């Protein structure tokens, strides 16, 4: 039942949506019914697939960058008190800026196309990764550190033997948040600064009043994000099962 519950809920929502649209005869130009979205999706499946593939790989590149930079920055911040004090406030301020606002600037620097999309995806998604790695490293038990320091362990030993493995569950947790954010970043950027991708599709479908197609595009982004999220959940369970022991023991 628990496994099927999301699907049941989804079906219920779709049915309700369809019923409401049909009952009140809502115009397909204002708010398309699920059936309409599906037919549009099927009709334009090749176009959608092309845009979806573009959005997917662009997101993955941006996300990959975010992992590399997030882990490195998190490592530096988490392993040094000084760096933590210096970098953290600035990073928080940066994170509060709406990333969509960067898109026009990125367009000036990199032109229309892949560049702004990758960078927006990166900018929006590296923060949670960095914070989680840093937190995992910075919150070591002092006793454990003493046990190792007495043996002559260097700061580096403690980080590698204890800090990093300990922050892995935080890391996977952050990946699940970051991947969904990365899709948001790519899509937002493509809406103004690309000639390809789901974001572009949304804008052009909207301006030609093809609401069914626009909704189909949204569904595709949501589905891609969900699949990636589930993928990281599975990896997380297999590599850091020790952190989820409560649920395993029942």
């Amino acid at each position, binding site marked *: 039942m628990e496994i099927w519950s999301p699907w049941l809920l989804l079906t219920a929502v779709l049915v309700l949506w369809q019923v409401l649209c049909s009952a009140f005869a809502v115009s397909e130009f204002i708010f398309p019914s699920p059936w309409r979205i599906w037919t549009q999706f099927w009709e334009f499946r090749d176009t959608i697939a092309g845009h979806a593939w573009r959005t997917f790989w662009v997101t993955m590149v941006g996300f990959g960058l975010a992992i590399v930079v997030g882990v490195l920055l998190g490592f530096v911040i988490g392993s040094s008190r000084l760096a933590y004090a210096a970098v953290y406030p600035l990073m928080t301020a940066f994170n509060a800026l709406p990333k969509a606002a960067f898109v026009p600037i990125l367009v000036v620097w990199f032109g229309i196309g892949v560049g702004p999309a990758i960078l927006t995806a990166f900018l929006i998604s590296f923060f949670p990764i960095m914070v989680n790695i840093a937190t995992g490293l910075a919150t070591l038990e002092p006793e454990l550190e003493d046990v190792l320091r*007495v043996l*002559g362990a260097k700061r580096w030993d403690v980080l590698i*033997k204890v800090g990093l*493995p300990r922050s892995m569950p935080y890391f996977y947790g952050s990946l699940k948040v970051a991947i969904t954010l990365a899709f948001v970043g790519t899509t937002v950027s493509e809406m103004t600064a690309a000639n390809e991708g789901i974001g572009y599709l949304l804008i052009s479908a909207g301006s030609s009043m093809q609401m069914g197609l626009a909704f189909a595009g949204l569904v595709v982004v949501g589905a891609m994000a969900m699949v990636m999220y589930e993928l990281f959940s599975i990896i997380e369970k297999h590599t850091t099962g020790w952190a989820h022991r409560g649920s395993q023991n029942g």
Partner: protein
Amino acid sequence: MHKAPSPWFVDFSDVWLAYNHELLVQNQFAVEAIDLKVRQGEFIAIVGPSGCGKSTFMKLATGLKMPSMGKILIDQQPVTGPLKISGMAFQAPSLLPWRTTVDNVLLPLEIVEPYRSNFKAKRKEYEERARRLLQKVGLGGYEDKFPWQLSGGMQQRASICRALIHEPKMLLLDEPFGALDAFTREELWCILRDLWTEQKFNVILVTHDLRESVFLADTVYVMSKSPGRFVVKREIDLPRPRELEITYTQEFGDMVHELRGHIGAVRQTGAPVPQ
């Protein structure tokens, strides 16, 4: 007081520690005037009210903290940094949940020399040693389980194994049995007693439990509260080997009682609270 050319294994002479410069200027010491002479292989216990600087003392004895004044010699050598000849265990077992029990016990060998350099090559041999040690403390069959699959008492045994795997000359235990139930605690007393009897390392045991200190130690020190200093030294001359039955004898009870009296006195007079 002896002033021999240090036949002692642990030799504190007039050691004072303030945690930082400001406190030093204000003459606020965490521990003061510590004089302690411990023979090779002696088992000492330190008892005292909580917050009396017992843990500070541990940090001094392992070289994690340097004294503000005074001199510490351990194994004839002045202490200048973390002492690799010591092993530590605390009230919390703090095992790493992603490592199996045997891998947890092996952790010190991955860090301390001379094991560190040849750890990869000799892993088999070391693992054998870790398994033997675990079996000795009654963890046979649990070596490949994860710590969170063990009970609290078992985790604490593994933690003690981790402290002993590199065959330290000195074992420091900071209330290691504090979180365990009475029966498990007595069981672990005997395990510690047997390990010590066999290997004769030095032990410094910090505890709240007076029965524990009398049962295990050769000498019990009572520490007063802020500032921490040793106020009573009591030799425990009970014959060895000691069995648990001894804890029910009159003689044993009297010693515990006597120490209890000292602690009571320390609590009343040792910490004058400024109004």
